[in-house]
């Protein structure tokens, strides 16, 4: 698809396919169009030309609410939580949404075991269960990020789009977080993960496929080993050859 | 034809006053992002002080034709209350705009009673004084010269503001701050002083408007809280934060009101509110404003 902002072409003929079971990383220098791509993919922006389909359904510009209902969820680059709610409540919002209980205006939330269990399960997967009663704004920055992603997982989406899931996290903790994410995805039944990432170690360590963007175009779309061997991509996107790691 | 001219002139007269108050509202909102509910109260204050000043001056021997002098001096002088109120607002600049709005409401409450306390509740006016300038015939309709003076004053103020914003250093700072507060601060603009100056300017425009309207009506106890809704209509139609919007909105509201009064008096304010709602429905940013949050 293409996306134009006035005269400026942010996405110029980007084609992308994600299948169930895949972990796809989107990489590229700043200004390559990654954010625009995410916004178009998640229904925030309609493309100027082309189409976006999810499970066969056209999702161009349908907006985050309807998209989440269809099974495509997204986490944000900047930590986005509900500051005054407790960690448990933050996740419960997603569970309530998933179970379509938002309409229940007279039932007691505190006594809803199913919602609580669903939320606690997610909190445990993300190692946040012991802080369930802490107001979200009081959590450490890294925990806030985890909570943000956890609440997205609590929707049990089919496909999840993570916008820089390890940004703002110290290098030491990045792998830990990725392990949690991947394990949680398996437990929750998420079929595919798409992430935008800058950290090449993470990208090469976890991806089934890497899509490299540059100036609104797809430079390469292949398995990590192929990307690593492609010097043009490496130079353009990474700037230096990546360390050789086992997949 | 006479009727049309009458309506047009009375509409433009009202528009001139509305413009002054709305311009005050706009400049404060544009720079400080505060919707000053007390702008109507400042208008009322200007009116009351204006009447007092004129009466005092006349008692002291001032010849009647010079009454506009104490009037304008009073109108502008009362703006001294601006820095006082701004000092209060300073406490809540970093808070949610709800609190800023409520603080201006607190000022409304206080000023309502202050005017009652000082001037009582019965209408307070300069009587037929403004007719000392006589009336003139415009296209068949008779209009007091004073009204034309006010319309002229409105135009002059509009032009002055436009010049100030475009040509003076202060105006540049105002425009820069309105567009990007952090950036302005980063390049060394003294925010505190700018805010005080802008708020005082906004207040002064309102109090001047109140003073100028006085000769043709009376200062009355509800005039402040009545006016805020018209001022709000002006800035919605014209667009929040825009000076040109203040002119356009004021003309729209002034003329509509004059038209309604002449044809269906019951619909007077109803029509205005309906237009406000229609504008918000169909073009929320008004004629010249920025897109609403």
């Amino acid at each position, binding site marked *: 698809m293409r996306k134009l902002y006035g005269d400026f072409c942010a996405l110029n003929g980007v084609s992308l396919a994600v299948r169930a079971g895949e972990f796809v990383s989107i990489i590229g220098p700043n200004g390559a169009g990654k954010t625009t791509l995410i916004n178009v993919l998640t229904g925030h922006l309609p493309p100027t030309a082309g189409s976006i389909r999810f499970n066969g359904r056209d999702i161009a510009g349908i907006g985050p609410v309807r998209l989440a209902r269809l099974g495509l969820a997204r986490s944000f680059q900047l930590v986005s939580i509900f500051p005054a*709610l407790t960690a448990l409540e933050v996740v419960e919002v997603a569970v309530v949404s998933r179970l379509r209980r938002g309409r229940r205006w007279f039932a007691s*939330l505190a006594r809803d075991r199913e919602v609580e269990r669903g939320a606690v399960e997610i909190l445990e997967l993300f190692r946040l269960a012991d802080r369930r009663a802490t107001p979200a704004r009081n959590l450490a920055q890294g925990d806030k990020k985890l909570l943000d992603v956890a609440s997205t997982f609590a929707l049990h989406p089919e496909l999840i789009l993570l916008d820089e899931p390890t940004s703002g996290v110290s290098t030491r903790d990045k792998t830990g977080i990725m392990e949690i994410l991947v394990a949680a995805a398996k437990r929750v039944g998420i079929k595919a993960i798409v992430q935008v990432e800058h950290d090449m170690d993470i990208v090469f360590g976890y991806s089934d496929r890497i899509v490299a963007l540059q100036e609104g175009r797809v430079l390469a779309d292949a398995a990590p080993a192929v990307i690593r061997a492609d010097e043009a991509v490496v130079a353009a996107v990474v700037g230096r050859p990546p360390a050789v790691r086992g997949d | 034809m006479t009727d049309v001219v009458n309506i047009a002139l009375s509409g433009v007269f009202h528009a001139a006053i509305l413009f002054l108050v709305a311009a005050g509202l706009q400049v404060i909102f544009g720079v400080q992002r505060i919707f000053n509910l007390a702008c109507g109260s400042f208008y009322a204050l200007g009116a009351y002080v204006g009447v007092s000043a004129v009466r005092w001056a006349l008692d002291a021997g001032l010849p009647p034709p010079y009454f506009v002098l104490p009037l304008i001096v009073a109108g502008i002088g009362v703006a001294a209350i601006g820095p006082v109120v701004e000092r209060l607002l300073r406490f809540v600049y970093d808070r949610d705009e709800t609190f800023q709005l*409520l603080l201006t409401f607190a000022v409304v409450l206080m000023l309502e009673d202050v005017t009652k306390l000082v001037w009582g509740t019965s209408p307070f006016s300069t009587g037929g004084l403004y007719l000392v300038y006589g009336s003139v015939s415009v296209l068949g309709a008779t209009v007091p010269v004073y009204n034309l003076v006010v319309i002229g004053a409105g135009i002059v103020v509009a032009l002055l503001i436009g010049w100030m914003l475009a040509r003076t250093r202060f105006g540049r700072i105002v425009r820069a701050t309105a567009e990007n507060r952090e950036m302005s601060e980063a390049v060394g603009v003294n925010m505190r002083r700018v805010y005080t100056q802008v708020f005082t300017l906004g207040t002064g425009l309102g109090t001047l408007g109140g003073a100028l309207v006085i000769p043709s009506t009376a200062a009355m106890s509800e005039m402040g809280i009545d006016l805020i809704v018209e001022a709000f209509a002006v800035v919605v139609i014209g667009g929040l934060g825009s000076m040109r919007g203040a002119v356009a909105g004021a003309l729209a509201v002034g003329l509509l009101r004059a038209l309604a009064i002449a044809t269906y008096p019951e619909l007077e304010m109803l029509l205005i509110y*309906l237009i406000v709602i229609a504008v918000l429905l169909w073009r929320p940013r008004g004629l010249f404003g920025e897109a609403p949050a």
Partner: protein
Amino acid sequence: MRQRLVLGLVIALALLYPLVASPYYATHMLRFFAYAIVVLGLNLLFGYTGLLSFGHSLFLAVGAYTAAVLTSQLGIRSMEVVLLAAALASAAVAVPVGALCVRYVRIYFAMLTLAFAMLFYSFLLKFYHLTGGDEGMRVVRPALLFVDFDGVPKTTFLSHHYYYYSAAVLLVLAVVMWRVVGSPFGLCLRAIRDNPEKAAALAVSVTRYRWAAFVVSAVYAGIGGALLAPTTGQVDPGLAYWTHSGNLVFMTLLGGFTHFVGPVVGAFVFIHLQDQVMSLLPYWRLVFGAILAAVVIFVPGGLMSLCSIRPRALRGRAPRTAA
């Protein structure tokens, strides 16, 4: 547990009050009961959903005028029917008004609701053939629970029969509101208040929930208005004026919008303090304006935040203080 005891004590005191206090003070509580209902509704929208309405006087007036029209024009005197009608009328107005208003936030929402309230005010004032204009409309004493108390003298009716009736209505509506804010719906509202974009990302239809909260809060305001009408026996356009809305917000803030009972406390303090001040000098607005300024600047969490009671169920949007 302690909170339940306090609540029980308060209710017991309220029930005993007419037996010990003078009729004047007991009648005064009637205004408190009515306004408490209104601000409970207002706070659902403000404290829980994050939308500040400066136009809730609209729904209060709708409720009050419904009571007037029913009792004095249509001869319907059953208070239950009046309350139901007021609720329906407020809902009927709130559905279209809310649909329009919730598309905007913050200042625009506040100003838009203010405009609607003033629209109704102008209508009430100008169309005097229908509404009685400036003089308003009479409210005939209603029958409570289908019992006619016409034989009872007015002060006794108000300070006893109507007192307990109003208190009961407040209690019922308070319990309902408590359930609402503690429900999954209430959770979604708080999420929307805290971060609308995130709420949307979690598949919560922000506009639709705001609209629902708007309608519920309007119904509460309407019922409160209808309950208020018989206490004075007269309704007038001033009920819809925007400064009346401002007072409602004042009460909510005074008590504390981050606590469930905060607005109720605020209404209580406001009404009784207003009465005290007015008996000393006619310039209550000056005093109250200063109080509001002080609350906004120094105690934004309201009176409840001064007691060291930690907010339960609702941890409100605290004002961002200077870093």
